[in-house]
């Protein structure tokens, strides 16, 4: 867009407008995941037998995916670092690396889910699996959305345009990583 309103150029709080908006996005995401995970934890505490269902989740796949997301977060923050120094090409390369991380995460998830569904642990099997697929699925949707947005931003990066957006998608990506940091022990480790 050629023309931007003057409103966009002001920053009375000292936080640039884009970043402030992303903080609000993250704040509203906190309550979405908070409500879902809170409901899960309550059920988990009243259902001691869920530990017997949780043993069928694959801790190693979960741990590998945690490693993948942590590493992609590192490359996202390195992309931000490159962008603040005005190096759009380098930022784009780091973003692609992050996108690859998101891709690997989804592929691993796909294999995990296929295996579990084949064993009969579908979303309707019982409430544990219902929460398992809903929570991890909602998170996976966020991963996919992040990858798509990052792809769009990386194209601008190559032209050295809109470099501040690298930080914005980075913050979102770190949040997605953060959600997984809690999902991993909740769904995989606690047995």
């Amino acid at each position, binding site marked *: 867009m050629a023309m931007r309103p003057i409103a966009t150029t002001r920053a009375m709080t000292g936080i640039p407008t884009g970043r402030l908006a992303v903080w*609000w996005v993250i704040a509203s995401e906190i*309550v979405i995941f908070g409500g879902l995970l809170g*409901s899960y934890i309550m059920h988990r505490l009243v259902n001691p037998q869920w530990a017997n269902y949780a043993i069928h989740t694959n801790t190693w796949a979960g741990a590998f995916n945690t490693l993948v997301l942590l590493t992609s977060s590192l490359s996202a923050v390195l992309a931000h670092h490159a962008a603040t120094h005005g190096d759009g090409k380098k930022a784009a390369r780091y973003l692609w690396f992050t996108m690859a991380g998101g891709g690997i995460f989804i592929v691993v998830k796909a294999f995990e889910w296929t295996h579990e569904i084949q064993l009969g642990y579908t979303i309707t099997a019982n409430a544990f699996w219902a929460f398992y697929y809903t929570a991890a699925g909602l998170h996976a949707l966020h991963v996919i959305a992040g990858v798509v947005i990052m792809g769009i931003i990386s194209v601008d990066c190559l032209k050295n345009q809109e470099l501040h957006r690298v930080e914005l998608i980075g913050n979102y990506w770190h949040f997605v990583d953060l959600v997984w940091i809690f999902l991993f022990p909740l769904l995989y480790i606690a047995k």
Partner: protein
Amino acid sequence: MAESVPAESAHAHDHHDHHEQSFASKYLFSTDHKIIAMQYMFTGLAMGLIGAFFAYAFRMQLAFPGMDVPFWGQVSAAEYNALVTNHGTIMIFWVAMPVLIAAFGNYLIPLMVGCDDMVFPRLNRLSYQIFLLSAIVLIASFFVEGGAFGGAWTAYPPLSAKAEYSLTPLGSSIWVVAVALEFVAFLLGGINFVTTAMNSRAEGMGMYDIPVVIWMIVIASILFMASVGPLVAGAVMLLFDQTIGTNFFDPDRGGDPVLWQHLFWFFGHPEVYVVLLPAMGITADIMAVFARKKLFAYKTILYTTFATGVLSFMVWAHHQFVAGIDPRMAHVFTITTLLISIPIAELCFVYIATLYKGSITLTTPMLWALAFLFEFLIGGVTGIFLGASGADIYFHDTYFVLAHFHYTFFPIAIIGTYAGITYWFPKMFGRMMNDTLGKIHFWGTIIPFNCIFIPLFFLGMGGQHRRIYNYENFPELAGQGMQDLRVFATVALLVMLAFQVVFVINFIVSLRSGKKAENNPWRANTLEWQTPSPPPHGNFGSEMPKVYRGPYEYSTPGREEDFWPQNAPS
């Protein structure tokens, strides 16, 4: 950080090279906040007509059971449920929210904080488009097999989760999807409002120079964002229960239906304040202008509103006293509920203090503002009965609750909206509204409104349960005395609906041939009145305003004029 900040003047220049725009790009796909505000307002008002029509249809059924309702026909039991459910859903999510928050928020925030547009104009347009889609999806649910959802606007499972109970296999899922889309629209809009008001205020406008109405809309948006999350998660869970047969809320398979009630009301109660606060803000601004007096205790109003906002997150389970919740928790929620009446009562006192010794002009907007305060007080006081868990066990799910609820939401959604429209009409359309017609409409709305709902309090205390399609089957409720009250309320509703025609006529006639409005017909201080009516694209021409003082400096001693615009250099 890395954000490049080009000079303001360079951008102001851009606004002048505009080409002639086609109708579609100007009115349908515009990113201008004023156009989007109008889209929200007219969509909201159109949905309001539908919601009012639903109320007409089911009230006719209650007053004259089994009659052929004109324009609808026989109201069957299933249709009755669908009408009641969608009346509630539409009036809250598709009328109060879009008109009070989205329309007034969009229109007023950039103008009143002195900038040229929202910070994310395209996001703003997307927000409206998603909202429009959600409205269409909801209306569509009336035309699917099985009909529209009839499980009440609170959608408690298992009724809402299982098609064999609700008998609306498609309608209930479409309802959930429509509501979820609407939430997305308002999340996008809310982020825009909050960010604009936080970051893009005019030079010199400190935190305490922001008009109260903007504060209230911003706080309301924050409340919405912070409370809607659990219900979004709950909506996903409910949709899965309906469509693929999970068991989140199915007690037969280990689920917990009360969890939905918590997820719903954790949002649902702050939602009351989400729509209340903008109406309170509109009222505050109007009162200060027409009392020609500095708003009493501006900072106290802000702090009180914050307190209300925080407390509103701690009261939700007072909707569930009879749902079998833990009795100890019922005590906690009774206490917090009674506590929250304190800041709201304080706001009412502060507003009255603004009026005290003011030079009051009873224009139409001022009448609406005063009526808001008066009627909302009745709604608040009757709420005390329901907040106390002991009394609530008797009142729960009777018409007492219904009347209480309408005494709070009617002032908010209808009176607040009319106050706002009649006050800002000159700014929005550049013409004055007819004051005589406005007053006829005012009295024709307020008197029948009280005639509708006061009888319902008595019916509720007489034991009349909600959600009953035909009281003839209940001997203790079918007596002549009770039926007379029902007929009285319904006739009052018809009178009130008839008087809305006056408003429509006034609106259209004023729009076409009303007196041309000057920039500042009410002699107000806030920034939107310091620019032409209606404001041009970019709002303030080539030079953005600077702010020198607070918004309520009326009748300042030692000044010739009794108002002192925020952007006038002293």
